[in-house]
């Protein structure tokens, strides 16, 4: 007897290409430049660099994609808030170390920008997830 097998699979089809949303990209870029000038005088070099790395990544990778601009701005803002919060925590830890007479180099190294991926990548990934969900809702409403 010949065994019987069946599997349900999903097909992705021909490689789909996007049309870049230049207007969204411009809006995002203006926001990021404004944020830079806003934060320039208030943050230290390390915090500013990490937040700007996130902002540029987010703007160039997310804003040109299809999807509502409000969703992109919301997640860009969310990333900046989380980045600022993390940098305050970092500053607090450094201050605490100085107060306790610890090695400043070590605490700067451990809490340094190398661990920024802990907030950068998850925020970007959640932003993409939200964007994809918003796209799906839009298609659903349009009945596609």
């Amino acid at each position, binding site marked *: 007897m010949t065994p019987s097998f069946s*599997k349900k699979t999903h*097909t*992705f089809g021909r490689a789909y290409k996007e049309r870049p949303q230049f207007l969204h990209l411009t809006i995002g870029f203006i926001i990021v430049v404004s944020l830079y000038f806003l934060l320039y005088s208030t943050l230290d070099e390390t915090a500013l*660099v990490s937040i700007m790395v996130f902002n540029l*990544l987010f703007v160039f990778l997310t804003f040109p994609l299809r999807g509502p601009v409000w969703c992109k701005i919301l997640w860009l803002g969310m990333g900046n808030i989380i980045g600022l919060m993390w940098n305050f925590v970092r500053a607090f830890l450094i201050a605490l170390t100085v107060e306790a007479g610890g090695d400043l180099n070590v605490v700067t*190294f451990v809490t340094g*920008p190398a661990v920024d991926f802990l907030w950068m990548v998850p925020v970007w990934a959640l932003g*993409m997830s939200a964007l994809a969900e918003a796209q799906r809702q839009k298609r659903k409403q349009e009945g596609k």
Partner: protein
Amino acid sequence: MLILNLVFIVLVGVMLAYLARHYIFTAVALYYRRGQTHYNPRSTVYQPKVSVIIPARNEENVIGRILQRMTELTYPKEKLEVIVVDDGSTDRTGEITEEFAKKYDYINVIHRSPENGGKGKADVLNEGSKHATGEILYVFDADYYPQRDVLENLTAPFVDPEVGAVQGRVTVLNEPKTLVTRLVALERIGGYRVDQLARDDLKLIPQLGGTGGGVRRSLIEFFGGWDPNMLAEDTDLTFRIYLAGYKVRYVNEAECYEEAVENWRWYWRQRCRWALGHMQCAFKHLWPIIKSKNLRLREKIDGMLLLNVYFVPILTGLAWFLGAILYFMQPSGWITLYWALIPIFVYSSVGNFAPFFEVGVGAYLDGRRRIYRLIPLLFVTFLYNTLICTKALADLCLSKILGRKQHAWIKTPHLGR
């Protein structure tokens, strides 16, 4: 100190090169529309006789599934030949295959005794190709599950006489099973939907994946078969094809589903084999690529980056270590700045395991919604792969010192779930 600084700068330069490569690939996969000619099987009347070789060693859990699928393919059966090479199986693989062979005349089985079997995939493919009569030889692993029209999609580009081989897209069949299968699915999305597609669009070097792809039989005969000394026989064949003046095409819509490894132990073993095989290829092909007259400059650059991709996790680890030393020994502006950028470098330097933004963009293009949430965990696989690649390099160096040519082929078990 000067030497340490120089080494550090070189490492950063290497990572920047890979970073640029990944960003270019991502942008190309997203927006670039002027790629190569796309051969639509519905408008291309090219259907030569093809042979599908299925290597099988103790695959009783999955062999029936793929053979059933072979009977459901839409490619004309009079132009199809399926050759199962039962590589000395000690389970019911031979028995199940015989049942199919009795029922369908285009399915053939070659049995090898347990003493002759187990010498690696290249050896099995060579055995299968001896019996093949098709113009194109396709290789499907036993755990694969292709789309019904996969052969039409894969065969269409062969209408171009310059095309020596074609690779289809590989996606994960058992994605929801475990965390490991989900992470492998992420890697696959980045590797195929973005990397392979971009390489094809830019006329670089799309890589044969060892399964879900095909090659002209005449080329295999010209090469004298697959190289049994290579653990990554697919990568080796890719470069032999380019060095011979042919090219490889990637077809995104030719989809095949694979059973991904389900735990970290098998992930380690499979990736160790891939890393070792890839490094073997790097030593074998790097110089011939540089001096080849059959490759254009862009292909040479891509070829070099592709061949060295399994060294990059090691180099990244080294850069971290060196960066830390320099940071404590001589804190300076540019070292601090580098520390600020290192997470991006790390994620961008994971090579063909795909960095986070490639995976995210690939998932977006596939219309996925939830898988993004696992992207941060790619860092775990990156660290794991750093260890894997380091061990593979150590093994390779050891075998070079000992003059050992043959490496043990550790087969990945397939559960058919």
